[in-house]
């Protein structure tokens, strides 16, 4: 059993028995451990490390009753840390965010031309079924390979290619319709 396990478990047991000083010491030590844990697992520039440390400390606090004192402490700690890490990564994948310091790049320069083209494309895409929309977005807009998309969505690569082909066909039909209407 590691020295950290013995130390942290002693503090945890004292805290659960009502020792506030031990609890403060425990949370301080856990803050350090968690910071190291998340730094090692997130990209060096990631600004979320401290948020994750805090979120995990709050989780440890509110879920402290789920620690079974018959078991070692560090597996409990790292199971929560890992859960919060995976939860964070899942959220980031769903809704990519940019650190505030770099957000300026997003707005720099006159991009109204590109923006209105993008808006047009969005309108057209919105008329397609959700599955082909997603494939076109990933392959044509984000530049993923069909193999990547297949791996992400769990579909076969052939299915992704067929979906892409159908989606693009539907898209060009929509464009032609619109052209016809404009010509009239």
């Amino acid at each position, binding site marked *: 059993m590691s020295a950290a396990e013995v130390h942290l478990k002693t503090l945890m047991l004292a805290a659960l028995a*009502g020792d*506030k000083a031990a609890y403060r010491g425990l949370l301080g030590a856990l803050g350090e451990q968690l910071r190291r844990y998340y730094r090692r697992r997130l990209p060096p520039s990631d600004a979320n490390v401290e948020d994750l440390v805090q979120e995990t400390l709050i*989780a440890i606090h509110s879920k402290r009753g789920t620690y079974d004192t018959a078991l070692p402490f560090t597996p409990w700690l790292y*199971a*929560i840390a890992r*859960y919060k890490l995976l939860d964070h990564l899942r959220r980031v994948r769903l809704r990519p965010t940019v650190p505030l310091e770099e957000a300026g790049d997003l707005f720099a320069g006159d991009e109204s031309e590109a923006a209105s083209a993008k808006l047009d494309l969005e309108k057209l895409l919105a008329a397609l079924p959700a599955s082909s929309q997603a494939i076109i977005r990933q392959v044509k807009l984000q530049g993923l390979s069909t193999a990547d998309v297949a791996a992400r969505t769990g579909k076969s690569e052939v299915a992704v290619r067929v979906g892409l082909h159908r989606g693009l066909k539907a898209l060009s039909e929509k464009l032609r319709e619109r052209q016809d209407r404009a010509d009239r």
Partner: protein
Amino acid sequence: MQTADLIDRLSSEDPIAPRSGAVVPLAGLLVGGCIVSFLVMWAWLGFRPDLAQAVATSAFWMKFAYTLTLAALCFWLVERLGRPGAGIARPQRMILLPLAVIFVLAIAQIATAPAALRMHLLMGASSHVCPWRIVALSLPIFVAAALGLRRLAPTRLVAAGAAAGLLAGAMGAWIYAFHCDESAAPFIALWYTLGIATTGAIGGASGKWLLRW
């Protein structure tokens, strides 16, 4: 907020936590879910008319023993999955025990029955509705189990959802046994287990978003 301030704030609260964790609320919620499910069974299906005679038969208690043993072991599994980092190997292995017993009983009954009766032992008269009714009666209990599990700290959401589903399924099957007048072990082994497994699958599929905390 600075992390140091957060630690100040958290450690100003009373750190005492009950040793039982949130297991007592989980059990309480399950009792509530069972009461709801029981009332649904009563209003929707009714008790089996021969209940008074049935309690004297071993088949009635076989259903009780199978479903309640399974439920108790699933409760253990759910409780372990609600505690981060706790091992689940033992409850997982133990769950195979009631399954093994009911299947051995089922095979023994089929093997010793006259050939003409075998199909009836397996299919009974209500196999087409049995699993679905068990799933339906399990749903209130599953909701209770999920609510209780969220008060713990499940870190393996699919497994925790499946365990909660199996627990709800086993308790739902127990409640269904008050209505169901099938008494053959092969029927129980196949159709009751199928209903329980279906609820487990529903739990596993919904765990990822239902149990997030």
